[in-house]
């Protein structure tokens, strides 16, 4: 065997050992993270709770704004409608860091809304995530409602359905698709780190979420713990989505074909 091949082989074996050691550390850390949750560790549960509170709150407010807005763009014909669709679709890609920065400048003591004293609070994080999620909800709602409206339009026109009733009927009849829309928004919110880091400040016991905690542990070099927290975050996202889909399925069995 040539010395080069020998050397490469040696490095491969070493690398394999290293990976195994890393995985060992990861499983230990994951066990620790799960243990903390199951054991009711107040700090981790507080972090998980804040993540859920902020992200679900943002999704709720984003739905209040995005559902009627998206439905209106999807169902009504008005000048600039095509442009509105393009803008909504483009805003889905808003960079969280930019949104965080803009919200920071708005809420900063030196900014226009500084008097509210919201910077470095969960409210500020909810506002930032609302701005990130609302375009997603609005853009996807527009698509869903536009498709449904294509089916309903003539029947509604024939019945003489007014604009408001039309909007609410389309939203209600699209409710199962719109649940998926809300979940897409939740996914964006709960996984986002750039905006909450800037406007929340990642303050322990006050504004630390799962994602900012993961970023913090990574920066401390605690990679296994960071990864374990990541797995916990994914598990929570799966649990929320699963709960929503179960709700949808049982409601659908009752009322929908």
């Amino acid at each position, binding site marked *: 065997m040539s010395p080069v091949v020998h050397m490469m082989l040696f490095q491969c074996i070493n690398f394999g050992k290293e990976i195994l050691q890393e995985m060992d550390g990861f499983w230990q850390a994951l066990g620790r993270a799960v243990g903390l949750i199951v054991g009711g560790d107040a700090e981790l549960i507080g972090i998980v709770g804040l993540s859920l509170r902020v992200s679900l709150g943002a999704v709720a407010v984003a739905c209040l704004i995005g559902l009627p807005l998206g439905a209106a763009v999807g169902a009504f014909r008005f000048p600039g409608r095509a442009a509105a669709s393009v803008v909504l679709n483009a805003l889905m890609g808003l960079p969280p860091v930019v949104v965080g920065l803009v919200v920071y400048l708005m809420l900063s003591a030196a900014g226009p809304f500084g008097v509210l004293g919201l910077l470095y609070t969960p409210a500020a994080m909810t506002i930032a995530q609302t*701005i990130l999620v609302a375009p997603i909800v609005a853009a996807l709602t527009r698509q869903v409602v536009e498709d449904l409206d294509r089916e309903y339009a003539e029947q509604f026109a024939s019945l003489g359905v007014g604009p408001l009733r039309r909007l609410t009927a389309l939203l209600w009849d699209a409710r199962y698709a719109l649940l998926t829309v809300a979940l897409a928004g939740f996914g964006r919110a709960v996984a986002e780190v750039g905006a909450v880091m800037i406007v929340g400040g990642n*303050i322990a016991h006050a504004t630390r979420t799962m994602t900012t905690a993961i970023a913090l542990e990574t*920066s401390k070099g605690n990679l296994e713990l960071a990864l374990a927290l990541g797995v916990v975050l994914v598990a929570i996202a799966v649990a929320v989505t699963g709960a929503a889909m179960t709700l949808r399925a049982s409601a659908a069995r009752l009322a929908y074909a």
Partner: protein
Amino acid sequence: MIRRAPVLLLAALLAGAAAAEERFIILQSTTSTRNSGLFDFILPKFRASTGIEARVVAVGTGQAIRNAARGDGDVLLVHDREAEERFVAAGHGGARHDVMYNDFAIVGPAADPARIAGARDAAAALAAIARARAVFASRGDDSGTHKAELRLWRAAGIDPAAHSGTWYRETGSGMGATLNTGVGMGAYVLTDRATWIAFGNKRGHRIAVEGDPRLFNQYGVVAVSKARHPRAKAALARRFVDWILSDEGQAAIASYRVDGQQLFFPNAARRGRVR
């Protein structure tokens, strides 16, 4: 203003909660102090002593100072004396006080391509790194550590910016992220000792250069001026500054240890009793 409505709604919703937790201050500080675990150790003691909660926003020194200059914080605890004094001179804060120090070190891969291990002269070591074109990971984020690093390059007579993107890599990130990057690239990194000792992803990296007086790292504290920033909680901030400069606060800093090593050395000038 479509956005104003939800803002006000949320503000109203949170008004009740905010009133209940008025007794806290925002401490604008650095990643090195937070990541080393110092705050987790001393802030509960501060709270026990005064009943005041200190909430830490940990960013680079440059950003911490800019945040405080916008009024987004009550106390500044960072490590860039010149910048702190400019902050005070601009009227954003009251007096600046020395709080504690530790030191910087240059860490590098075990292979030591620039052959600087064991050197005492930090500037000469940087010059050796440049000569060897060995990879160096810089914070590149206007932080206190970044400023200290740039002072060392000046002392070595080298302009690293000219080599940015080749062997000189600016991460634009915090201390921990830069260490992660440096370890991943096999690069030399200038780090504060506290972050390094508490850092969990060292792999083969070790301290190459330490002990140069120019690696001294002084932390200072400034209360944000209420005259300039009316929302600043001046009275509570005053309590924090008094406490951390007091015998009790200084002793708390001195007693924080990781793996048996002291990370920060209190050096406040002797002052009066704590109120």
